[in-house]
């Protein structure tokens, strides 16, 4: 398999995952704006901060409101984190690696790009937003479905999955990091209604509110949420789950190629920071510090994989 193709697959699936995550993030922000108008501005600020585009946004827009944030995050071509841009990138990468994809995966990706391009042609009216966000998630899901249902379980699949889970882990960690302070027991106004909203937003932006309730009933509390999103391996967007998946895909690669690479040590190190840990020990040693290290580690892992499997040189 060409190094370039491995890189193309990896990025194709990072971008697809990103598009879906952006939709979720906006969905949660939009809900807060609708139900708690006093918290709206700061909520939109968090959305933009989580996407890591604060300075870009502020150079384009003066005010943090729904219309500006939604337009910037969905449609703005200048914003390299907008859904429109990342969808285009996903499809460009898919064209690049066309020979590594089944017809189903390629067509679903091409369709995703066509449908979203069409849907994001004009500014999104508020009443159309829920439908557009659902469409974005759905299109990304369709591609994943064709990958799951039609691709061989070999190195091609492993590189695609690595892209998905590294992007997802990064996204979950960023959402937590932007809001880490509301999860700190000592600083939070325990039980205040604002905290309740913030907790719920975190869960919603990871499509986790329902599953959290399945496991914990109505007992929503910060350390429970942190535990769920960081350490619970059954939660498909938790850090532990993503790292588990990254580890197993990298192990598959080393088994197929008969060779361990530096990236394997890299992921082992990250795995150790989560394995056998309790949420209390993480909170005690500093949640922000922990998340910062995790995000940094993911970045390092990503460039190590790129180097080890010769994406670019």
């Amino acid at each position, binding site marked *: 398999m*060409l*190094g370039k193709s491995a890189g193309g697959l990896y990025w194709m699936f990072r971008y697809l995952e990103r598009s879906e995550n952006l939709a979720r993030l906006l969905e949660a922000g939009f809900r807060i704006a609708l139900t708690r108008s006093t918290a709206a501005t700061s909520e939109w600020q968090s959305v933009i901060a989580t996407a890591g585009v604060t300075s870009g946004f502020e150079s384009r827009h003066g005010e943090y409101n729904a219309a500006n944030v939604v337009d910037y995050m969905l449609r703005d071509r200048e914003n390299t984190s907008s859904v429109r841009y990342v969808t285009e990138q996903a499809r*460009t990468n898919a*064209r690049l690696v*066309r020979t590594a994809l089944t017809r189903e995966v*390629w067509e679903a990706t091409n369709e995703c790009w*066509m449908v979203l391009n069409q849907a994001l042609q004009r500014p999104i009216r508020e009443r159309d937003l829920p439908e557009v966000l659902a469409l974005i998630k759905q299109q990304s899901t369709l591609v994943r479905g064709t990958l799951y249902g039609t691709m061989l379980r070999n190195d091609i699949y492993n590189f695609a999955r690595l892209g998905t889970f590294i992007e997802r882990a990064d996204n979950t960690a960023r959402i937590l990091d932007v809001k880490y302070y509301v999860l700190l027991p000592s600083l939070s106004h325990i039980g205040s209604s604002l905290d309740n909203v913030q907790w719920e937003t975190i869960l919603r932006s990871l499509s986790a509110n329902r599953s959290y309730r399945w496991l914990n009933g109505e007992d929503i509390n910060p350390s429970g949420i942190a535990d769920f999103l960081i350490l619970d391996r059954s939660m498909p967007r938790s850090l532990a789950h993503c790292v588990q998946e990254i580890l197993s895909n990298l192990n598959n690669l080393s088994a197929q*190629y008969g060779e361990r690479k530096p990236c394997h040590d890299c992921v082992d190190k990250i795995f150790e920071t989560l394995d056998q840990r309790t949420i209390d020990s993480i909170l005690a040693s500093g949640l922000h510090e922990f998340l910062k290290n995790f995000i940094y580690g993911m970045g390092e892992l990503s460039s190590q994989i790129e180097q080890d499997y*010769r994406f670019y040189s």
Partner: protein
Amino acid sequence: MGDGKNDYDEMFGGDGTVRDAYREYHNWIDAEDPAQLLKKSAEAETFFRRTGITFNVYGDSQNTERLIPFDVVPRILSSREWSRLARGIEQRVRAINAFLHDIYHRQEIIRAGRVPERLISENSAFEPKMIGVSPPGGVYTHIVGIDLVRTGDNEFFVLEDNARTPSGVSYMLENRETMLQMFPELFSKIPVQSVSDYPKALRRALARSAPSVCSGRPVIAVLTPGIHNSAYFEHSFLADQMGAELVEGHDLRVIDGRVAMRTTKGYEPIDVIYRRVDDEFLDPLNFNPDSILGVPGIMDVYRAGGITLANAPGTGIADDKAIYSYMPEIVHFYTGETPILKNVETWRCSEPDSLAYVLDNLEHLVVKEVHGSGGYGMLIGPTASKREIARFRKLLKAKPGNYIAQPTLALSTVPILTKAGLAPRHVDLRPFVLVSPDSIDITPGGLTRVALKKGSLVVNSSQGGGTKDTWVLDD
């Protein structure tokens, strides 16, 4: 020309009777609801878009991808018509390969005085680095497209040979796929010869031409200029269908006398490259030094027998428009046979008598630039304005050697589906030929291009042309 009255229509005879090859198809379409057919035709477009069968338009700031319009009415040839064409094509392609070998070795044809020496030595398509080089298996042109036009019942002419990197075969294959999806019942009624083996045959032709250093199953790659090339879809399509790697110049490197590709496990040698990069850009060390599309040193590996390039560098000397007029001579010289396929009468403007004739008859002739392609740099006398004719008169006088002229042919028509029903439009045909050391393989049919504008003779996709599925009946 172009008035539609006297042109040969392939479906209908002059008195409106349906020609034999189209009889069953005509019965079918006659019974179909025209509104339904138009709906199907719109569906075809959706199908092409979903599949991503698009081409990029150069110079378009948005980098728009466009579709080549597809017409749902097939162009049909009887097996008898086809087998005669196929024999003629095979003969011509044999001659082209023999000519290339000769031109880069002893140049017997020049010694024999059949082709003037300056036509070769002063031709930019002649590649001095190929002198004395014998490609693996003796094949120069693994992939050839022969452009044919028709003017009557048994009147076919070769308009152009494409011996460099002919494109369009993916459209031939996808057009058939689309027809099979849209009208499965047609194919159960009418026996049509299959085209779907082309990718397999291409792989076989390339594999059999592997260099002698190759041990085991040959590693084959398609070399593309990249995702922004207008034919990128075709490059990825063919690589995909053959199970070959799709590589760009920056994926390759010369290592230990072999061309190797960068894989996730390190560099691995390649045996055969189906390159869709022009000669000039193939190797910055040997050709254009500014090229970033090629592989430094690949030409040296090639000359040492370490890799097969398909097609070989320097094949352009065989399809140059100035050489074209000598093709009947060339066919006769190398095969000892009378050419089965006719050439279009051609005036070489480099010759004073011809030039005088061409200047006197510009309004009746088609004037072509010797090195032009894609329908650009061309004068179609009968439809040109006085100003255009005057402009070409000047060009011809200034550089006569750059031009050839041909009569305007009354190209045959095949009906297309329009909102007003069937309407005749001019067509051409590009059959695709695969050459391996031991055989020549011609896919039945080829790509039919159709000028969608009424009366137009320009079938190029870059100028408003479309395509049709081409059927050779299994009768």
